């Protein structure tokens, strides 16, 4: 009987720890803002939003590493402002649905096919890894022209 009561107690203590679910993982395209002359990361005040979306994804933040959430469509486009100079970037990609678990749910992973952009501030874009997974890592290098004052 003592054993049984002990077991019940353990079960109730264990029950206090249940029902904690992790959020589903999200695959993000990661870009490094690079100075093409030095080939080193460069900080820039960035604001950007998806074309067709009302809300900003990132607003006026000084960074050298930015992430882009891709859509399930074949092309995902963003309007990006680098220190008030606006460019448009379009990512052509495929998307594959992935299963995490029934606790975390489902998510998408992507494969970059090509990238198009305007060239107001962007000089060129290099794809370093075309696979966009939930383990965030550098996928592209955004080579932008440095500001006349420096800005590195």
């Amino acid at each position, binding site marked *: 009987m003592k*054993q*049984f009561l002990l*077991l019940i107690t353990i*079960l*109730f203590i*264990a*029950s206090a720890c*249940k*029902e904690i*679910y992790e*959020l*589903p993982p*999200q695959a993000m395209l990661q870009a490094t803002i690079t100075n093409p002359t030095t080939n080193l990361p460069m900080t820039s005040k960035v604001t950007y939003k*998806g074309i067709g*979306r009302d*809300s900003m*994804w990132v607003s006026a933040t000084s960074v050298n590493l930015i992430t882009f*959430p*891709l*859509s*399930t*469509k074949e092309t*995902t486009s963003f309007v990006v402002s680098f220190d008030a100079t606006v460019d448009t970037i379009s990512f052509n990609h495929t998307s594959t*649905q992935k*299963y995490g*678990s*029934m*606790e*975390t*749910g*489902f*998510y*998408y992973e992507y494969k970059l096919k090509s990238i198009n952009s305007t060239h107001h501030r962007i000089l060129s874009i290099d794809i370093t890894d075309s696979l966009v997974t939930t383990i965030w890592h550098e996928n592209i290098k955004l080579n932008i022209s440095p500001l006349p004052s420096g800005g590195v």
Partner: protein
Amino acid sequence: MRILSLTLVLCLLAAFSNGQTHKVQKEKEKEKKVKPKREDNYIRLKGLRFGMDVTRPFQYLWTKGDRYGTEFSGDLEISPNLFPVFESGYEFMKIKTSYVDYSGQGSYSRFGLDYNFLQAENKNDKNILYGGLRYGFAFASQKVNNYLIDSYWGPTTGSFSNQNYFAQWGELLLGMKGEVFHNFYMGWSIRFKIQLNNKAIGYPLAYFIPGFGKAANGSNFDLTYSVYYNIPWDFRKNIGVKKLKAIVVKPKSVKKPVVKKPVLKKLTD
């Protein structure tokens, strides 16, 4: 020189004798290590013992999701200290989060053997401490009623229809069973379950295997607590009586063989 050689001889003798004593000691130790044979070579559990696992309906208390079910078992002492066991049950698993609405269910069965390590003091001592092996299999189905993938670009929703699958696993267990009242038993077991090769069911993968647990894990631990009732019907005794009756009855029913006397007519003629 003589003294030196004498000392060398003495040293060798000492080493030899030391080796001998070591040998004798080792032999003695070996003799000590030999376990005495079990004296409880008799069957204590007469008849069949049926059980119900009382923890199965409350599994949601220690597992993620709403897991519950029922499980029944039956065992008998086929030979002293050896118990063939059969366990069968049905389980449900439900998970409802903001992202997934999942339900899985299925029936499972296990069969195997338990061996009692605890030597009985007398024939009425029916408590056992056992180790056991099981083979388990399950027929199950799962369904994703609804899922949601939230994103900056807006949510994506969908569902997956019913998927049926078969799974199998092996179990290694340790447990105790004790008689609490006459013919009423209680007992627990700790189980280590290892998944055997299961067929892939496609997308999404099987999440839950009834009787085993999470399918993604190659192995799982489990704890059971059961109540048992021993049906006080000694089938061995009845079988024995029937056999005896058959032995006693047979000679009565058999007619004496008629021995024909040889015809001696021709010879006498």
